[in-house]
C-alpha cells in the first residue's frame, strides 16, 4: 500500500509503520526497522544498502556529514515514535490507567488526552520520511517534506505543550495522594518496555521533540551549499519549526501564568468589608511581587496625615493591571488594599538620616475610592530600583514619540473610515475603538483595535479621543500633582512663618 498524501487516512500509516519492510521490491529497510537507537544509533554510512551502493566512494567528507545530518532527522523520529508508542500503548491504554478507581477520568484526560494526536502526527512524519528514504538513498527533498508537514500538522504540539504545566502538577498530586495510582504506575514503569524510564520522562517527549527539530534542521542547513533550492527549503522549514517551538513555549508560559494566578487567588484572603477583586483573567498575570516594610512615621507626607502604629511587613503584588497590597499570614495573604495600576504612582525618596531604601507609593483611588499614600522601605538599592522600574510607564528615547502601556493607554474612536495604504496599517470603520500604544509627533498612531485585537498604524486625525480609564487617571494624576504642589506651598509658607 502506498501513501502519497500526508494528510490521508491514518490507517494507511499504521500499515507503513508496521508492514513497511514486507512490501515487495523494497531494497531498503523501513526507517522503523533500522537497527539500534541511543548512542549506537545507525549511521547513514553504515546502512548495508548505502555501503553496497558504492555511493560512499564518490562523496566528500562534507557531503557524508550532510547525509548523516539528514539521516539523524529520520532515525530520531523513528526512535521518538517508538517511545510515543510505549506511552500510548503501554501506559495510556493499560487497563489500570483506564480504571477510574486508579485514575479519575478528569485526570486521565489531563495526562493522556493529547498523546494520541501527537503520536498520530509522528506517524505521519515518519511515513513521509520513510517515503523520502525509499525514493532516494540520498534523502533528497527531506527538508521540503518537513516544511510541508510542519505547516499543516504541527499544531498538536502547541496543544500538548499548553497542557504541560497541568500534566506535571497532576502527576505530582496523584503520586502523593493516591496510593492506588502510585502502585499501578510503579508496576507499569517496571516493565522492560520502559527501559526503566518513568512515565514523566515519556510525557516530556513531545516537548523535547518539538524543541529539538529546529536543531536537527539547523545542523542540515549548516552543511548545505547556500543558494541551492535545498538550502532554501531547509531555511523555510527551519523558520517554520522555530515559529512552532516558540508558540509552544508561549502557550506553556500562558498556561503557567494562569496556574500561578489560580494558586495566588486561592491564597489571597479578603477581610470583611474589603470587596474581593476577581483576580482570574486571561490577560492578567503577575509581573513582580515581594516584601517591603511599611514605615509609619510622625513625619508629614503630602496630606499631613499622622500615623502612629509600628512598622509592618507588607507584600506587594504587581499585576499587569492592578496592584494588591497584602499581609503575609503563614501560607496565605490577607489583602490590605488594592488599586488599578494606572492610578498608582511611585517615587524614590531620599533618606538622609539612616539611608534606607525608601519609596513613596500613592494610590490615587484605593479599594474605597480614596487617595492613600504609604512610605515603603525596600530591602536593598537594587530591589528599590527594580520596583521603580516595574512600576514605571514605558518611555521612548525618541522625543518624537510617546509610548503607552497596555494598562494605561488612551482610547480613540474612529470618526472617519480609513483604508490602509500599507500592510502595517490598520483599517478603521466609523465607530471602531482603538487602544493607542504609540503616538508619533507627525500625527500617526499605533494601536490595537478592540473588536478583534488587530494592530497597526493609522492617522490620528481620523479619530477622536474618548473617555476612558486613561483619561480618568490622567485627570486624577493632575489633580494630585496640583494638590501636592499647593500642599508643599502651604508647608513652605508655614515653615517661613515659624522661623
Amino acid at each position, binding site marked *: 500500500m502506498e501513501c502519497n498524501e500526508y494528510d490521508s487516512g491514518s490507517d494507511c500509516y499504521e500499515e507503513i509503520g508496521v508492514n513497511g519492510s514486507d512490501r515487495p521490491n523494497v531494497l531498503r529497510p523501513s526507517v522503523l526497522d533500522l537497527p539500534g*537507537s*541511543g*548512542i*549506537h*544509533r545507525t549511521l547513514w554510512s553504515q546502512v548495508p544498502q548505502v555501503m553496497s551502493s558504492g555511493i560512499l566512494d564518490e562523496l566528500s567528507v562534507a557531503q557524508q*556529514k550532510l547525509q*548523516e545530518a539528514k539521516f*539523524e532527522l529520520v*532515525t*530520531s523520529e523513528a*526512535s*521518538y515514535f517508538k*517511545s510515543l508508542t510505549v506511552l500510548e500503548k503501554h501506559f495510556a491504554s493499560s487497563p489500570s490507567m483506564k480504571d477510574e478507581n486508579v485514575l479519575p477520568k478528569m485526570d486521565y484526560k489531563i495526562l493522556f488526552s493529547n498523546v494520541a494526536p501527537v503520536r498520530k502526527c509522528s506517524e505521519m512524519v515518519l511515513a513521509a520520511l520513510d517515503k523520502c528514504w525509499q525514493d532516494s538513498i540520498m534523502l533528497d527533498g527531506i527538508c521540503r517534506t518537513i516544511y510541508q508537514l510542519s505547516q499543516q500538522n504541527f499544531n498538536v504540539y502547541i496543544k500538548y*505543550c499548553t497542557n*504541560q504545566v497541568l500534566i*506535571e502538577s497532576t*502527576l*505530582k498530586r496523584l*503520586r502523593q495522594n493516591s496510593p492506588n495510582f502510585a502502585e499501578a504506575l510503579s508496576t507499569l514503569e*517496571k516493565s*522492560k518496555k520502559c*527501559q*526503566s*524510564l*518513568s512515565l*514523566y*520522562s515519556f510525557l*516530556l*517527549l513531545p*516537548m*523535547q*521533540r518539538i*524543541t*529539538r527539530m*529546529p*536543531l536537527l534542521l*539547523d*545542523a542540515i542547513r*549548516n552543511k548545505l551549499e547556500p543558494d541551492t533550492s535545498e538550502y532554501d527549503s531547509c531555511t523555510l522549514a527551519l523558520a517554520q519549526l522555530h515559529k512552532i*517551538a*516558540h508558540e*509552544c*513555549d*508561549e502557550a*506553556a*508560559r500562558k498556561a*503557567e501564568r494562569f496556574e500561578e494566578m489560580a494558586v495566588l487567588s486561592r491564597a489571597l484572603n479578603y477581610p470583611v468589608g474589603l470587596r474581593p477583586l476577581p483576580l482570574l483573567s486571561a490577560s492578567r498575570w503577575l509581573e513582580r511581587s515581594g516584601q517591603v516594610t511599611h514605615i509609619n512615621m510622625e513625619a508629614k507626607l503630602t496630606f499631613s496625615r499622622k500615623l502612629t502604629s509600628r512598622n509592618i511587613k507588607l507584600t506587594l503584588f504587581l499585576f499587569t493591571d492592578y496592584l494588591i497590597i497584602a499581609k503575609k499570614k503563614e501560607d496565605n495573604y490577607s489583602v490590605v488594599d488594592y488599586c488599578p495600576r494606572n492610578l498608582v504612582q511611585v517615587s524614590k525618596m531620599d533618606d538622609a538620616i539612616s539611608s534606607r531604601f525608601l519609596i513613596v507609593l500613592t494610590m490615587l483611588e484605593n479599594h474605597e475610592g480614596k487617595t492613600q499614600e504609604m512610605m515603603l522601605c525596600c530591602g536593598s538599592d537594587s530591589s528599590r530600583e527594580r520596583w521603580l522600574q516595574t512600576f514605571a510607564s514605558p518611555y521612548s528615547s525618541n522625543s518624537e514619540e510617546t509610548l503607552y502601556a497596555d494598562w494605561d493607554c488612551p482610547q480613540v474612536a474612529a470618526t472617519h473610515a480609513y483604508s490602509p495604504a500599507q500592510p502595517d496599517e490598520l483599517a478603521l470603520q466609523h465607530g471602531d475603538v482603538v487602544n493607542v500604544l504609540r503616538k508619533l509627533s507627525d500625527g500617526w498612531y499605533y494601536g490595537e483595535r478592540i473588536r478583534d485585537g488587530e494592530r497597526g498604524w493609522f492617522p490620528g486625525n481620523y479619530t477622536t479621543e474618548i473617555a476612558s480609564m486613561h483619561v480618568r487617571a490622567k485627570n486624577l494624576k493632575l489633580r494630585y500633582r496640583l494638590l501636592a504642589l499647593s500642599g508643599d506651598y502651604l508647608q513652605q509658607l508655614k515653615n517661613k512663618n515659624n522661623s
Partner: protein
Amino acid sequence: MQPLAYCYLFKYIIIGDTGVGKSCLLLQFTDKRFQPVHDLTIGIEIWDTAGQEAFRSITRSYYRGAAGALLVYDITRRETFDHVSVWLEEARQFANPKTVVMLIGNKADLESRREVTTEEGRQFALEHGLVFTETSAKTAKNVEEAFVGTANAIYTAVLEGALDLKKETCGVRLGSLYGGYRQTDPALQSTRDPLYVRYRDCC
C-alpha cells in the same frame, strides 16, 4: 546485548548559556566507559538542554526530578560566567532543593583566551555550596571526573538519607535489582534514545 544490572539510576540535567559546550561534554563523557562508583553500578540518564535555551517555559520541566545539575560556563567568555547566577537561581527555583549542582568551567584547553580565572569559579562555587571543576571537552580533561564527582555527591546524599528515594522528584530510581533493564552499557544507557544526546559538530 545483555541486561544490565545496576542499583541506581540518576537523572542529570546539563544547563548553561548557548555555546559553552554542553553537548560536547556529554559526547566526550558518553564515549568513555563509566566507572562504577563505590562498587555499585550507577546508571545515569542525562538530559541535554543545548540549543533549547530560548524555550525557557517548556524546558523548565527538565529541572523537575533531576538529581544532579551540571552548570556549565565557558572560561573564555566572561558573560557566560556572569549568567551562572541566573541559571543557578532557575535551578534552585524549579529543581528539587536537594539537587546536587556542579559548576563546570569548560574549554580549559584554551588557556591563552581565558577570561574567567579558576579562583573566581572556585570562589563562586564555595559561596553557593556547589561542587566545582574545570574541564576540557576537547582534551577530555576532568570530564569523567565531573560526571563521576556529581554521581558521588548524589550517592552520598542517598546514603545520608538526604534524598528520599520514595519521591519521584528526587531524580534517583532504583535499578535492575528491582526489575529494571538496560540494553547498553551503563554510561550509554542514559541515552536510551538520541533524544538525550545530541550529535553536533560543535567542538
